[in-house]
């Protein structure tokens, strides 16, 4: 038995789970900062991203070193390979949270229509359900839960589209500038959830060794301003 190696694999996975918690916190805070117009909270999200970047980079290095020195194969190889991918997704989710926080900076001065706030709030809640489920599926290798992520993601895409429609009703020049920041934020939220769904696909490969893309019935149709 390779005790140190086994422990290192466990430690790397635990670190990715921890990073996942940080990302969830960041995207939740970013959403709250947006709907509450809380610029201080937005700044905290932006600062937290430095920490996230440092940790994801360190984890990437650690993963590479383990691959280089331990020659992992089979499920160990799939674990490390998948963790490397998941790590990248986490890093991008963090960046998207930062984008939302930056939208807070631009929008905090003004208040727009109630309906748009409600939509963003609802979307944020759904996104966090997806993120929590993703992290739980990941921690416990729960494939059934991983398979549900795509389904949980669908209403988020719908809300984004609805948001877009609401936006087109706005008339005033100034309000449109405000609203386009908001719609971008809605788009970022939707992208965060997409990353969570991608992580679910990775989990399936990690556990089964089969590559499988989840059903994309509500996938991207438009451009992606951030990936």
């Amino acid at each position, binding site marked *: *038995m390779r005790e140190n190696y086994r422990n290192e694999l466990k430690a790397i996975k635990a670190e990715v789970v921890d990073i996942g918690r940080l990302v969830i916190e960041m995207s939740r805070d970013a959403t709250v900062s947006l709907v509450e117009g809380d610029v201080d909270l937005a700044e905290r999200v932006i600062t937290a991203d430095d920490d996230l970047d440092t940790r994801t980079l360190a984890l990437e290095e650690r993963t590479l070193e383990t691959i280089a020195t331990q020659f992992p194969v*089979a499920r160990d190889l799939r674990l490390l390979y998948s963790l490397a991918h998941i790590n990248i997704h986490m890093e991008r989710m963090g960046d998207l949270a930062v984008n939302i926080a930056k939208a807070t900076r631009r929008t905090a001065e003004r208040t727009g229509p109630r309906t748009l706030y409600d939509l963003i709030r609802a979307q944020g809640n759904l996104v966090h359900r997806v993120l929590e489920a993703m992290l739980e599926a990941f921690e416990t290798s729960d494939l059934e839960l991983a398979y549900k992520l795509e389904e949980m993601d669908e209403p988020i895409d719908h809300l984004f589209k609805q948001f877009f429609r609401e936006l087109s009703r706005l008339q005033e020049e100034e309000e449109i500038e405000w609203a386009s920041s908001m719609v971008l934020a809605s788009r970022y939220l939707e992208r965060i959830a997409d990353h969570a769904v991608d992580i679910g696909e990775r989990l399936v490969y990690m556990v089964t*060794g*089969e590559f499988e893309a989840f059903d994309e019935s509500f996938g991207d149709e438009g451009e992606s301003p951030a990936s």
Partner: protein
Amino acid sequence: MTTTPVTAQTDSTEGVAKFSVRGLDFYYGDFHALTGITIDVAENAVTAFIGPSGCGKSTFLRCLNRMNDLIPGTRIEGRITLDGADIYGPGVDPVDLRRRVGMIFQQPNPFPMSIYDNVAFGPRLHGVKKKEELDGIVEQALVRANLWKEVKDIMGRGGLTLSGGQQQRLCIARVLAVQPDVLLMDEPCSAIDPTSVQKVEDLMAELKSSVTIIIVTHNMQQAARVSDETAFFLQERQGEPAELIEFARTAEIFTSPHDRRTEDYITGRFG
């Protein structure tokens, strides 16, 4: 003879089968060493046999060129064909079979004679007498064994004066000099230096276009590096015969093996 049911997937995923083994059981006297081995070994490919110590890898290898015939009290059941012909059939000359199916062992075993004579030994035995012809065969075999450059100016020196790694490649040249179809290698790199290991691995890659290679190795990375297909053998319980657990493309075995026991073995969870 009947074929026993098998659990492992046994069809070679590569091209034509060189060896076809069906329902093989092997006994050393009362000791039942192997059971139900069914496998197709692909032609002009490298097949790796892996598994814990004592799981019968060497025993199985020796079945393939009838070396076990030389051990008293052994018995074999089932069927092994080479290019479609039963190697245990009547009229098969085991000596001729061993020329076609050469073997390399863990410990290099050059004859106590010159480098040249070591390699010329087989061809001479088969009646090659002309100096130029022998020279050509010897040179070609040494080139194929990745040793020519190191020994071309010292052909008269004793084979036993070479380094261990060079001795091993000399033994490979000695086997290649009689133009075998198949090369059985039983842990050929366990006792040699890293440079020679590299040279042996290189020569395997070069040889496989013309020779079918089966290698037994305890080095998982080596199996992963050199082979096209990998067979995992395991004796699950003491006193019971070993079996072929899984046989598949090497890349598949080392990324997504199907059997939990294969996975546990190659990831170092036991053995």
